């Protein structure tokens, strides 16, 4: 074998080995980055529509690729079961309310963004199902906005047409509104003046109330002084009362002694007076007879007119009339 042939053979072998190594490196690098050599677990979500999703669609968590869509299966109720393979180490980060969201943007491949959720319980290991939602593209959002705006614009057009048709009425309405506004301005001015008067009256009432309160305070102070005086007087009375009571008691005892003496004197007088009193009535009777005899026999008796008879009142039930009628 010549050196040239040997060199060619070595070059050929190097190129072949280099080609194989490059292919293996490229394939192995991609497979390693996709987690082919790491442990992965499957989770799934039920989507109403799997448009834009395909096996291999990236699954991201916080924007970092953690897996991909493994398969799409049409369910009997026409929903789609989207099975995703994700890094097994991240499974415990998903909570029971974890959620997958399909993100489609213009000119960019669709991705599924995982929201790990915040529920206290982790994802059920026996049924690794998460919720699924989609976010519309700009075109879909624009279509939705257009569908919402078109009825509003139609209504606005109708309102504008109606307003144009009733422009004269609107002028009248505006004039009335201007007049009403003027009246309202006047009313507002009156209300303002009324409010100012009320404010002044309230100020007077306030000052009077303040004076009354001051007087009341003074009166209360006086009453307090009087109460203090009464307290002082009561203290004096309390001091003098025992002495007065003792004096009254001694006076009463003295009066009792006087009464007792009086009873003794009365008893003594009663023992001496009956004889006198027993002799006094015949003497009075005698004196009466003498006066009667003298009146009947006295000379001047004829000179004097006889006493008139008592005049009876009209109504005998009036005792005061009988009592008040002067004797004639």
């Amino acid at each position, binding site marked *: 074998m010549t050196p040239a042939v040997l060199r060619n053979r070595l070059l050929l072998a190097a*190129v072949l080995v280099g080609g194989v190594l490059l292919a293996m490196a490229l*394939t192995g690098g*991609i497979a390693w*980055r*996709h987690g082919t050599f790491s442990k992965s677990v499957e989770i799934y979500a039920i989507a109403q529509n799997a448009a834009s999703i395909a096996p291999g669609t990236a699954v991201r968590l916080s924007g970092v690729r953690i897996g991909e869509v493994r398969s799409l299966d049409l369910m009997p109720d026409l929903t789609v079961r989207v099975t995703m393979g994700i890094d097994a180490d991240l499974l415990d980060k998903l909570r029971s309310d974890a959620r997958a969201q399909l993100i489609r943007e213009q*000119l960019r491949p669709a991705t599924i963004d995982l929201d790990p959720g915040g529920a206290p319980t982790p994802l059920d290991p026996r049924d690794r199902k998460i919720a699924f939602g989609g976010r519309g593209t700009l075109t879909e959002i624009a279509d939705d906005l257009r569908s919402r705006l078109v009825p509003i614009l139609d209504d606005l057009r109708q309102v504008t047409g109606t307003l144009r048709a009733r422009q004269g009425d609107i002028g009248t309405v505006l004039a009335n509104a201007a007049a009403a506004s003027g009246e309202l301005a006047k009313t507002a001015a009156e209300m303002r003046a009324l409010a100012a008067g009320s404010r002044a009256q309230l100020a007077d009432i306030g000052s009077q109330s303040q004076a009354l309160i001051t007087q009341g305070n003074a009166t209360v102070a006086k009453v307090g002084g009087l109460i203090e005086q009464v307290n002082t007087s009561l203290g004096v009375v309390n001091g003098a009362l025992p002495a007065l009571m003792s004096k009254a008691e001694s006076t009463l005892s003295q009066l009792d002694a006087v009464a007792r003496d009086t009873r003794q004197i009365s008893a003594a007088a009663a023992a001496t007076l009956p004889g006198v009193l027993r002799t006094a009535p015949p003497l009075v009777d005698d004196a009466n007879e003498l006066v009667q005899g003298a009146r009947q026999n006295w000379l001047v008796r004829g000179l004097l007119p006889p006493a008139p008879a008592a005049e009876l009142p009209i109504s005998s039930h009036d005792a005061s009339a009988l009592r008040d009628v002067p004797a004639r």
Partner: protein
Amino acid sequence: MISASTRLALGYTAMLTHGVMHAARLREAAVREALARQIHLSGVQALPAVSLIAALLGAVVPTQAMALLGTDNESVLKILVWGGIRELAPLIAALVLTARSGVAIATEVALMHLRSGMDESLWHGAAHEDEVVIPRMLGLAVCGALLVSYFQTIAVAAALLASSVLLDTPLLAELDTFLVSGVWWQVLAAIGKGILFGLAIGAVCCYHGLNAEPKVAAVPKAAVAAGLGSLAAVLAIDLFAAGLRFV
């Protein structure tokens, strides 16, 4: 009466089947020698040209993609992965093989047929035909895989470098983004397509070389027919592969 296209297709298929069925002839030292020589001529010697094309394409694709799509790094890398690796690398390798080696093989075999002085019976003898066809067909298959492997690696490296320079991002970050965007089996699928393209080009070119009339005017005709037939076969296989992906 069958059409010319059908006859050609049947002839290509027969040549391909014949070469694959008699691959055991590689045990012979002369056949292995011819195979090594064919790989050296069609693969090693074509490597600089393929590498240059790959580097230029790898650098141009991100630039053009960013001009079209903006500095959307992920989309650029997606275009590079899907277009550059799976589709462009086998097609470019096939074009290089056809232009550099396929036409040369057809011309060489036609000239051998014309100038060897060998009679018809010897040329159509199984042993000699296998010695001519098998090293060239299998050699182009190996070269197809080899060129695709180098092409996609160099194209990706150039694209990552261009993307890193244009976006002012770390090269390792670009590499990581590419690895995330890529699909591992696409690399192997592209190499597989390169093998199929090489086999087809070798079979087509050998067919036209072997079936050339023994006269000088037939040699360029055989070369032209080999070139066009190779391109047609490559596109047909690519279409078939694309169809398989959607089945």
